[in-house]
């Protein structure tokens, strides 16, 4: 069974535009920018996969290669087993491309007329096109404005129409390039819910979503690939990426009846990396909140056992999962 999306050693470079001075002094010198280097990604069917990276990382270039808008220099990309270069006709039947560009519509046509036009270009028979247009209009909440000119739409409506267009052929795979970029927080949140619950959860579509929004990636995605300077730095679930980085385990422990000397002894325990005092209340029997970092192979239960055997009382112990921002920063530094 082929992957929904697969790339094998995809690489892409672009020529940098030369100024007049360079054209005259160095006419044959080529300046090239590496956009992508040896990208290997596999996306399973029904997965919500995020490509996360800062601006200029290569996200849009990769999505455009998958949509057959850019030819890779090296490597192959497949949509459900179809080569996006050689079998682009088959590949295009399977994808819906949702781009966050309000200029990609005809402003003097209505929303419905725009959808009708693109439905015909996607070879939808007329009767089926009309039915499907009504469905996607309802799905995206555009019924009240479907017959208004696109130029009169708000930004949120324009983005919803872009999603409607991407869904018009009911494709199995959706390629989304920063779909919530220009939306207000509430609209963006509703769109994220729609993607996760309706498109992926209910309709079982595969979604490949490029974003630089960490919160969005953390909220939505089953798996994430972090890309920077054209290279995949890490790929997997959040837990897998954390494990890959060997991120230390951190715990917040609330304690009572604990002395300074005990806290110092905790630091000397073999698996303990760091002990930080977060809160101290002497009026409550020296109630203390500690942040304890232990290494990958360490076991917090051993630390708790030691505290108890030394006379301390453990009130609570909560693991601290490092947020994506922390993981992201560490990975980009690598």
């Amino acid at each position, binding site marked *: 069974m082929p992957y929904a999306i697969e790339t094998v050693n995809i690489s*892409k470079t*672009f*020529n940098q535009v030369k100024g007049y001075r360079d054209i005259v002094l160095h006419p044959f010198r080529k300046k090239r920018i590496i*956009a992508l280097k040896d990208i290997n990604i596999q996306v399973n069917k029904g997965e919500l996969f995020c490509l996360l990276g800062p601006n200029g990382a290569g996200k849009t*270039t990769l999505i*455009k290669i998958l*949509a*057959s*808008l*850019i*030819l890779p*220099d090296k490597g192959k990309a497949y949509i459900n087993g179809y080569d996006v270069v050689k079998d682009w*006709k088959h590949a*295009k*039947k399977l*994808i819906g*491309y949702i*781009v966050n*560009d*309000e*200029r*990609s*519509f*005809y402003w*003097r*046509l209505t929303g419905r*007329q725009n959808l*009708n*036009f*693109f439905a*015909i*270009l*996607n*070879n939808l028979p007329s009767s089926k096109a009309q039915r499907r247009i009504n469905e996607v209009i309802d799905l995206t909440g555009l019924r009240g404005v479907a017959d208004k000119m696109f130029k009169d739409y708000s930004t949120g409506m324009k983005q919803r129409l872009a999603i409607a*267009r991407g869904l018009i052929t009911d494709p199995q795979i959706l390629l989304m390039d920063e779909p919530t970029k220009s939306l207000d927080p509430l609209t963006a949140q509703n769109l994220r819910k729609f993607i996760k619950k309706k498109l992926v959860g209910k309709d079982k579509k595969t979604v490949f979503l490029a974003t630089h929004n960490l919160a969005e990636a953390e909220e939505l995605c089953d798996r994430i690939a972090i890309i920077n300077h054209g290279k995949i730095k890490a790929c997997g679930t959040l837990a897998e990426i954390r494990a890959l980085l060997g991120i230390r385990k951190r715990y917040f422990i609330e304690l009572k009846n604990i002395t300074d000397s005990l806290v110092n002894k905790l630091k000397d325990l073999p698996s303990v990396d760091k002990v930080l005092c977060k809160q101290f209340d002497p009026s409550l029997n020296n109630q203390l909140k500690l942040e304890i970092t232990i290494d990958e192979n360490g076991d917090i239960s051993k630390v708790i056992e030691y505290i108890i055997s030394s006379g301390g009382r453990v009130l609570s112990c909560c693991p601290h999962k490092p947020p994506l921002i922390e993981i992201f920063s560490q990975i980009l530094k690598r």
Partner: protein
Amino acid sequence: MAFIYRDFINETSYKLAFFMELLGIFFSVLSFFFLSKLFGKAVIPHLKPYGGNYFSFVLIGIAFSSYLQVSLHTFARSIRSAQTTGTLEALLVTQTGIPTIIVSSSLYSFIRTSLRVVAYLLLGLFLFGVNMKGANIFAATLILALTIITFSSIGIISASFIMVTKRGEPLTWIFTTISWLIGGVIYPISILPDWLQKFSYLLPITYSLEGMRLALLRGFSTNALLPHILALALFAVVLLPLSIGLFGYGVKRAKIEGSLTHY
């Protein structure tokens, strides 16, 4: 049809421009009518092969040179318009191939031009007394079809440049300027010096306009117009496959450079 409908809605939404174009046709014809009054009833030897009347001569030239304009410009303009408005990417992601998109994007321009030509001819016939009795409509249509294919091929070559360079393609400017100068649009080529006339016969517009005038104004038979028809057919046979090949190369270059949607 989808493209024609899209462009019709787009064009007619600019209501003032739509009416002004209709007025423009009328005033253009009127200007040349008054210009032809300069000649009065004088017999101009250069106009004799075409029936002797300057207004009829120039009306055919102005009307059918519209096809030159639209064929040369519409493909490149469609691409450039799609690039600048941002719709090209959305079009290229659909299941419709690029050649179909480009050709279909130009259909409305040809339909509009045909309506302009009909308007020119009707004005000439009913308002300004142009005589087209005995016109060979079949030959005129055949010549028109070959003309459109030939000029469109040049237009597609021009569009290939636009795909890669985005601006500044030289072909249409050269062709349009030279065609107007020595192609027989507003004066017969027999007026030109002999050495310049030789260059006229290298241009498809020369055969196109001459054939059209002889078919419509003199009612020449299809057999008599065979030299013009065959010349245009030869241009079409050479230029059409060349244009398709070059356009495919232009698209591939743009995809390699990642510049399909740049402008």
